[in-house]
């Protein structure tokens, strides 16, 4: 029993539960943004299940491929694969099983939804992780693109087409991802140098990277606000979104004006809270 618990705990670490959770919420919020009677509880649960499996699967497959660079990074060397708590074969089987189950379930729900979920998984594992991550710092754009796919997929399932709102929500996540990755690039610069992973701060300097983080945070806020306006969000929710956006803009301006690691990391944390809150607001209007 203790062994199973230890195993499950290691698997939980492999799927990066916080990141997976946030991406899952973007997908659910995008689905719920279409509102009842389009959305139903049965489909909502199916979206949650299929997205959870697909996102977790792609994350595990990334961990399998990146185990060599994780082993060289202080921040990541304790993860289950480099530390030997989970074997490569075991993780590969887990990742493939989760991915196939997730994409299969998604395709069964709707071919369009399944195709978008598959595109996200393919972009993340093959294009971002295997092809570009070790070659160019611009790989994060593809990383961002795959991060935006759950939102696009959720919306596509609800309205049965790729619409402007889905694209805006995906764009918001796409623009949020660089704030996440680049903040870690700055904070753990030595780790990335040791692992020979090309990053923006290494290529263009910290100042330019901070400017990009700020601009992409603002871009994400604009995309979310436009999506909320297009969705027809209630006035009260819009007021709250406006306040949260104001807070993000103030922090973004402050981090441009007086850049510091602390402020930069604070902006990254706030941007994550902002993304979570705005998605919850989009979801809340469905009830």
């Amino acid at each position, binding site marked *: 029993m203790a062994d199973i618990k230890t195993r499950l705990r290691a698997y939980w670490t492999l799927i990066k539960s916080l990141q997976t959770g946030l991406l899952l919420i973007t997908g659910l919020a995008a689905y719920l943004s279409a509102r009842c009677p389009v959305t139903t509880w049965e489909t909502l649960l199916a979206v949650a299940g299929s997205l959870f499996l697909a996102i977790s699967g792609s994350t595990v497959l990334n961990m399998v491929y990146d185990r060599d660079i994780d082993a060289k990074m202080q921040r990541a060397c304790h993860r289950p694969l480099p530390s030997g708590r989970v074997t490569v074969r075991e993780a590969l089987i887990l990742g493939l099983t989760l991915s196939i189950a997730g994409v299969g379930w998604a395709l069964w729900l709707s071919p369009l939804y399944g195709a978008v979920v598959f595109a996200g998984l393919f972009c993340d594992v093959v294009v971002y992780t295997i092809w570009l991550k070790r070659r160019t710092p611009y790989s994060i754009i593809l990383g961002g693109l795959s991060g935006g796919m759950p939102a696009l997929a959720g919306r596509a399932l609800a309205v049965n087409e790729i619409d402007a709102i889905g694209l805006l929500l995906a764009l918001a996540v796409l623009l949020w991802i660089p704030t996440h990755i680049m903040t870690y690039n700055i904070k753990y610069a030595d780790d990335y140098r040791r692992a020979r992973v090309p990053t923006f701060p290494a290529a263009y300097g910290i100042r330019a990277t901070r400017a990009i983080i700020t601009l992409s945070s603002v871009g994400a806020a604009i995309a979310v606000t436009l999506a909320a306006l297009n969705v027809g969000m209630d006035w*009260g929710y819009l007021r*709250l979104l*406006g*306040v949260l956006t104001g*807070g993000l803009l103030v922090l973004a301006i402050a981090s441009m004006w007086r850049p510091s690691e602390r402020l930069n990391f604070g902006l990254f944390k*706030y941007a994550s*809270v902002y993304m979570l809150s705005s998605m919850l607001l989009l979801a809340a209007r469905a009830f």
Partner: protein
Amino acid sequence: MRRMTLWDRVGLLATGLLAAYQIVVGVEGTSQLATWLYTLAFGVLLIAGLLLIIFGFEVLDSSLVVIVAALIPLSLSVALVFDHAPALGIGYAIFALLGLLAIALTRYAATKTIATMTLAFVHAVAALVIVGLPLVLVARGNAEWGLVLVAIGGALIGIGGLLLAFLKTGKPLVSRDVILTILPALLLVMTAAFVIGLAIR
């Protein structure tokens, strides 16, 4: 500097959630201008709670804090005046705007004593309005008893504002540790009083 505890974070999060709720539901039967002013006040409370959770109590060392914190009592008091004594609305709004400008200017271009006195004066007037106006209205039977809670919130915001103001100017009324220990609870009780009071006024 006192480190933030889990309970501090829980208190600040609850304050933020209450402020967010108030922003979403708004205040029934109020003008659009007053709605924006209430949104500004509760918005600053919400963002302040989030920033305190993210950055810790160190964020209070920023010189902007005094100016931004003044927005809470000023916008709340202006909203209350527009709602319940509209004849005085424009005049009081001009005072609030000038008060905010004076706080900002004296922060950067005056001695500490003048900055403190300006801040204390503007905060005191705003707090008196938030405390006094609801009490007068309830006493005259022009408002529901719930508005008394707004007065209590006003008293708390006055205490909090003055404690922080004197702390920022280097002449704390009580020790920094005591202020930081009571601050999250003070903000939570104050916000709860405003939210309940505005709902049953």
